[in-house]
């Protein structure tokens, strides 16, 4: 996989502004098309799921997915490894989703409406504790929508995606040491919402 870094862009004599540069019809992005296809195929579905869950809006998730990859492609970031690249992608998605929710906090196309609903069938049927029963009874997506955007992101990244605290900190632009208490609080809130009834 070949990344075009800031230094190589400068060697090519390309502009320093944020947008990719068109030079003799050649477009310069963060990576070439083949590398992008591989990266996209590995990440698009998790990114969409993340966007859909933290915005609570499928249609918005569709729009933000395209925007996320556009901003990723035209960025000039340099990455240590694949995990770093992924964290950066999710950071773009996070910022876009939080900005979109700030501008339009009302949900227009809820995630758990219509076909392809993924808010159900998630509970462990063998679980007999109170929270487990609540999870089966209530809708996780509705409870998630009652959380703050950052709480949704924290819970999704940590527990749905299995990201480490370092990765979550990078994605959300927080200090690594702050993740543990923030995550614990978010978890307690989600649990309370599920047990108390999120509807």
């Amino acid at each position, binding site marked *: 996989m070949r990344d075009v870094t800031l230094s190589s862009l400068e060697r090519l004599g390309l502009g320093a502004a944020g947008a990719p540069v068109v030079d003799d019809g050649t477009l310069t992005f963060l990576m070439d098309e083949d590398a992008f296809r591989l990266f996209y195929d590995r990440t698009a579905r998790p990114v969409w799921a993340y966007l859909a869950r933290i915005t609570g809006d499928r249609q918005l998730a569709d729009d933000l997915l*395209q925007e996320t990859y556009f901003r990723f492609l035209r960025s000039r970031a340099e990455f240590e490894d694949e995990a770093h690249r992924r964290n950066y992608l999710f950071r773009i998605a996070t910022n876009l989703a939080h900005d979109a929710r700030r501008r339009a906090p009302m949900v227009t196309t809820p995630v758990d409406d219509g076909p392809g609903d993924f808010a159900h069938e998630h509970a462990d049927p063998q679980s007999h504790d109170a929270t487990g029963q609540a999870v089966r009874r209530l809708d996780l997506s509705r409870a998630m929508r009652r959380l703050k955007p950052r709480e949704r992101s924290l819970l999704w990244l940590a527990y749905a995606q*299995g990201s480490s605290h370092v990765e979550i900190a990078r994605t959300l632009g927080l200090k690594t040491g702050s993740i543990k208490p923030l995550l614990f609080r978010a978890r307690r809130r989600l649990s309370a919402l599920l047990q108390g009834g999120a509807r």
Partner: protein
Amino acid sequence: MKACPREPEVVEAVTRGDWRQATALGDNDLRAHAASCAACGELVTLMQALREDHAVACRAADVPAAGTVWWRATIRARAEAAEKAARPITLAQGVAAASIAGVAAAFAGVAWRAFPSLPQPDPFVMLALGLGVCIVIAPLVLVFTLARD
């Protein structure tokens, strides 16, 4: 409820895969702990719910093909780059339009003075009128130019 020091172990076991399978493979002690620890029990339940939700969402995701996303990005990047390249031209056009307006105003003043039968205003007034035209036209042209960007 307080956080439990064994939570990282629980997170790792659930993240590895099926919690029951993981515990059957040697984490029986952990499973027994989670059954009696409120924090870990809650953690397991929420993690299983979120992980299942994640798996179903990824399956349900109807994402466009990579080629489509790449194609749209290139189209947009080219449009933005072309627009950016055109900006100095439109600015230059704006300045040129304001200059032409100033020259036209000066020419009108000279032409007016060629006809002594017409009432002749003070040259200072004429100069002020010319400057006024420039001052009014230039910002208008700039506003329209920048609005297009």
